[in-house]
């Protein structure tokens, strides 16, 4: 009765809701997605090749440019991997550890705020964008106060931190975290019980825990499927064992649950920050660097180390030949790259407009996908 045929449509790479330069070739039957094929690589800059050709400290600014909305966690993953390679993980002073935790939790907040703002705007809710950027701006100001940069922080060094905290910084953070819980309530009042928001997210892109693990999904999408796994708890680094926080998990593994998980993660990050402030104040000022040789030349060996970045498991695999100051091979395991791989499985059978929600809910950053 009706003429039924499939059509191939390009989605991106210049589509605003693809969060960068992601291109998806969609096979659609009317509005329904039959198959989706992500095409990536538009932002490939050969970061891993660069890492092989420069000394370890020189690599740190390049890690900023991978997940450029969460550069502090990229720095953290890299310096920790090199420290593990050199066997100096235990020597990092307490104050430096706390500063690293604070910066990466602030970074998690700012990354999640950017995610919420763009995810909501993709789905059609304009207002949260302004609220989220109001607070994100304050976080970026805190970064600027510490290291002078707002986005590409380059704020960690192998063996410690580059600078001590500027005077008054902790008070500024305290003022921010005191108000931030109320701000999260505000975002939630806009979305959580919003009928349109629920229509667009509940039951969209359901992924079961078994399937999520098979696809290698990590971070909030994995927890949204009900797997209580967070590297900060499972294989803790820095001083996370001393800090209290809970791991929020979802039940249904759909877009709405992943949204709830990230909202709760922001509260938990805020709680961690609150705990950190008195702990930092108790440590001696200026004790921010381990006593290590200025030339970073790790012994021959290979390590894989990963941290919980805002997007999931961010891992570095470094092989050192023991002769040079360069990594012989440095492979990055970007969470976005692996999570994005499951997009076709999640998108099948949904409408084209749901694909926008799905790209948002995976929370990809193409700088990290393509490296």
């Amino acid at each position, binding site marked *: 009765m009706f003429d039924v045929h499939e059509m191939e449509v390009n989605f991106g790479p210049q589509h605003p809701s693809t969060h960068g330069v992601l291109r998806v070739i969609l096979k659609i039957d009317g509005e329904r997605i039959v198959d989706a094929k992500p095409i990536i*690589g538009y932002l490939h800059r050969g970061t891993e090749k660069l890492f092989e050709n420069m000394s370890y400290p020189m690599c740190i600014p390049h890690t900023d440019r991978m997940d450029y909305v969460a550069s502090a966690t990229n720095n953290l993953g890299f310096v920790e991997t090199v420290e593990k390679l050199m*066997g100096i993980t235990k020597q990092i002073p307490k104050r430096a550890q706390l500063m690293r935790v604070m910066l990466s939790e602030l970074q998690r907040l700012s990354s999640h705020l950017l995610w919420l703002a763009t995810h909501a705007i993709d789905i059609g809710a304009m207002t949260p964008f302004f609220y989220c950027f109001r607070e994100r701006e304050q976080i970026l100001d805190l970064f600027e106060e510490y290291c002078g940069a707002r986005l590409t922080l380059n704020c960690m060094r192998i063996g410690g931190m580059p600078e001590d905290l500027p005077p008054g910084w902790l008070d500024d953070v305290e003022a921010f975290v005191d108000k931030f819980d109320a701000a999260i309530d505000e975002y939630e009042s806009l979305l959580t019980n919003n009928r349109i928001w629920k229509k667009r997210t509940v039951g969209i892109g359901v992924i079961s825990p078994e399937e999520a693990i098979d696809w290698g999904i990590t971070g909030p999408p994995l927890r949204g499927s009900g797997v209580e796994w967070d590297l900060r708890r499972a294989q803790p680094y820095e001083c996370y064992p001393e800090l209290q926080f809970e791991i929020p998990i979802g039940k249904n593994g759909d877009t709405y649950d992943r949204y709830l998980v990230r909202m709760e993660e922001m509260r938990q990050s805020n709680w961690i920050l609150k705990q950190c402030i008195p702990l930092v104040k108790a440590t001696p000022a200026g004790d921010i660097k381990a006593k290590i040789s200025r030339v970073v030349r790790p012994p021959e060996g290979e390590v894989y180390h990963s941290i919980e970045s805002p997007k999931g498991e961010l891992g570095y695999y470094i092989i050192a030949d023991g002769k040079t100051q360069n990594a012989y091979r440095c492979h990055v395991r970007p969470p976005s790259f692996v999570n994005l791989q499951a997009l076709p499985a999640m998108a099948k059978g949904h409408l084209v407009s749901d694909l926008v929600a799905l790209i948002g809910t995976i929370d990809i950053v193409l700088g990290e996908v393509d490296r």
Partner: protein
Amino acid sequence: MTDVPQQPSATAPKPAAPAKPVARSLDEIKRDPLVARACERAGDAIISAKEFAGEISLTVDRERIVEVAKAFRDDGFNYLVDLAGVDYSSYPNWTGDRFGVSYMLYSFSKNNRVRLKVTTDENTPIPSVTSVWKTANWHERETFDMFGIIFEGHPNLERILMWDGFNGHPLRKDFPIRGIDTGARIYPEVFPEGGGPKAGSTGKDVKDVNIYKGDWPHYGTWPVAEIAARAAEGGMPPAPELAGVVADTAKPTEEAPWHDPEKALPERMELARAGNLKDKLFAAMAQTDCTACGWDCEGYAAALASGETTDITLCVPGEDETESMLKQLMAGKA
């Protein structure tokens, strides 16, 4: 999938054990509680083992990697964290195969990691583990793209980060960090033949193709004489940005009194009023002899007049003014 992960014990995270001063032997590592059960099933495929910084690396017989991977997956290592290729060709004192592939595995129930490794050379494929873990798909594609390692049985082994048709594998050690000239031209519709950036170009030609049009004091002056000489030999014409540069040859002569870049277009056309079509076309050019079109001004006019080219859009410094005049002239209206 048999193992739905339980929450790892929240209170007792296993810290990475410090590197042991005395290395354990292969058999001792195989008996390690972490890998013992998987090694019972497929232990004979494990060639050697290594420990560093509390991490166990097992080198596996290439042909039996799928069997070993299944043994580990069924023993709880159901999460393939990462898969990375390595090119050992410039590793100090390396005697083994050229390439290595490392599989980082994680077990939720044991809350620990194991690394499997296989080695191969340029031509021997590695059996794909996509049938064991779905996530291996893109990882193997990336390794193929970056190293040229073939994975046998992969459902869709094509390039993922580089584009189709790229002729190289960037993470091989013999691939230069400056890139290679792949011959593929970028934006061929914008830049003239021979101009424009090239995929993987060395950067030496960047000066020719930069789209900056004003003065460039910190790069020195444009090598006008060199460009003119090159063009005279029929060499590569310079890019349109050189269009503003007035060559030494751009001086009015008796045959061509209009050949003066200082004169405006109506004045030049007036001077060429009595000439033939070629002269009129010549007068319509910008008179800079910049060679952005591939000729000097006279050559381009002659080429248009003789029908060698019909493209009237090549005069860059003349801009729209020249183009519209050329259009009229070619249509026989002026």
